[in-house]
């Protein structure tokens, strides 16, 4: 059962931020509520006030400006999963969104809420890490861009200030001859392990010019694993294919996997390795077929 709270419904980011500043830690931003309300129903947290930001206009747009895709923080998972623009430009992101939780959560839950709540067993953060995303955070009079790598601090903790609101996510378009894959495994509602890989090849499609690897769900926050990326970067495709097992081992250790009901630490580390190999095959397939962010993700 939920304890009683008051509802505020500001119609601008400034008003929302003012309310959060005025009420401090007794107030919290509320969007879809699919994570927040669960924790409040369990009695794990309580706020005296929820600040519903869904009356703020234009925070749910998905658009492309120059070479950057902008997703408004209030876009629901369903909206992103059904976006023709994303389908064309970021198919791996669409595929990930189509598999977030279940159809009812995707209907109500927002991308901004998902990231801000920083529940460890979530999909989008891990994929956004390899896409080179930036988050836009605003408050009364300031606006800043946060690189995805700096956003998550710990489980349920981000670098957002108390009166700051995540308003959008910006993702640069992938270069030609590149591929992206996000794969997850879990046997409960939430994933045990999520692995994301971005791979860019040279013009001839023979060597890896750039690689980004991220692991999520296994530990407290999604993480880039640069040491594992180093095993692929500036290698021929054959060398990279040989090194992918080792990269998976490194990524598994770096994931800070913990033993819990989602699986033992060893098991999760092993799954990281398996998923990274599969992600490599998928990403290679896309980059060889031309890339430009238009390659479809199979599997």
């Amino acid at each position: 059962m939920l304890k009683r709270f008051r509802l505020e419904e500001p119609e601008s980011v400034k008003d929302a931020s003012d309310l959060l500043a005025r009420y401090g830690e007794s107030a919290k931003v509320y969007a879809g509520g699919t994570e927040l309300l669960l924790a409040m129903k369990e009695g794990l947290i309580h706020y005296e006030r929820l600040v519903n930001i869904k009356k703020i206009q234009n925070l749910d747009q998905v658009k492309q400006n120059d070479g950057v895709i902008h997703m408004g923080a209030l876009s629901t998972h369903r909206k992103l999963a059904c976006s023709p623009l994303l389908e064309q430009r970021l198919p791996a992101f669409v595929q990930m969104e189509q598999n977030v939780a279940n159809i009812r959560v995707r209907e109500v839950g927002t991308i901004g809420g998902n990231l801000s709540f920083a529940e460890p067993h979530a999909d989008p953060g891990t994929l956004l890490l390899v896409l080179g995303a930036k988050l836009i955070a605003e408050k009364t009079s300031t606006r800043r861009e946060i690189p995805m790598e700096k956003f998550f601090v710990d489980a349920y903790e981000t670098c957002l200030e108390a009166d700051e609101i995540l308003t959008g996510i910006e993702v640069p378009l992938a270069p030609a001859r590149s591929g992206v894959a996000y794969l997850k495994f879990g046997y409960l509602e939430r994933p045990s392990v999520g692995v994301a890989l971005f791979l860019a090849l040279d013009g001839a499609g023979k060597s890896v010019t750039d690689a980004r690897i991220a692991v999520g769900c296994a530990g407290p926050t999604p993480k880039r694993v640069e040491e594992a990326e180093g095993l692929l970067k500036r290698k021929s495709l054959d060398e990279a294919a040989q090194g992918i097992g080792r990269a998976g081992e490194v990524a598994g250790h770096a994931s800070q996997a913990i033993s819990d009901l989602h699986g033992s630490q060893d098991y999760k580390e092993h799954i990281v390795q398996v998923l990274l190999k599969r992600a490599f095959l998928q990403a290679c397939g896309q980059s060889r077929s031309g890339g430009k962010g238009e390659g479809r993700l199979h599997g």
Partner: protein
Amino acid sequence: MREGCMARVMSKRVEGQFIPISLTVNGTLREIEVEPHELLLDVVRDRLGLTGVKRSCDVQVCGACTLLLDGRPVSSCTLLAFEARGREVLTIEGLAQNGKLHPLQETFIEHGGLQCGFCTPGMILTAKTLLDENPDPTKEEIIQFMQGNICRCTGYKKIIESIVAAGKKMKSSPAA
């Protein structure tokens, strides 16, 4: 989660706040007042008396509390009631028209798509959304769409058969 401040917050009593909302429930306009913390599930069951919708897992996993909001499935156990303002709520009680069961209700009976029946309102409402957008889904599409609705009595074979049969029925008489 910052526990220190939570304890302080919890010690305060929050005054009641009443939000007047109007919503359409199974085609009838209802005007009620809700408090911000009231859940749609409780309002529909306890205040509107429509008990087809069930509380079960209470964490948006099982689908027993599924309602359609403007035709789309939501978990009413974790949706604040005020969110239904100005919108159309459909519950299982609103599915039959003029005493005639919806094709999904008919085929769930004909194909034995239920045992205890607890998950059935949610199954049927979710399946309605699917068939409304795709009257001829493949088995794989049904499985993907219905993934968030759990039945604990038995398997899903007969449920899937019921949905396929309803799709066929709806195509042959689209007015239903």
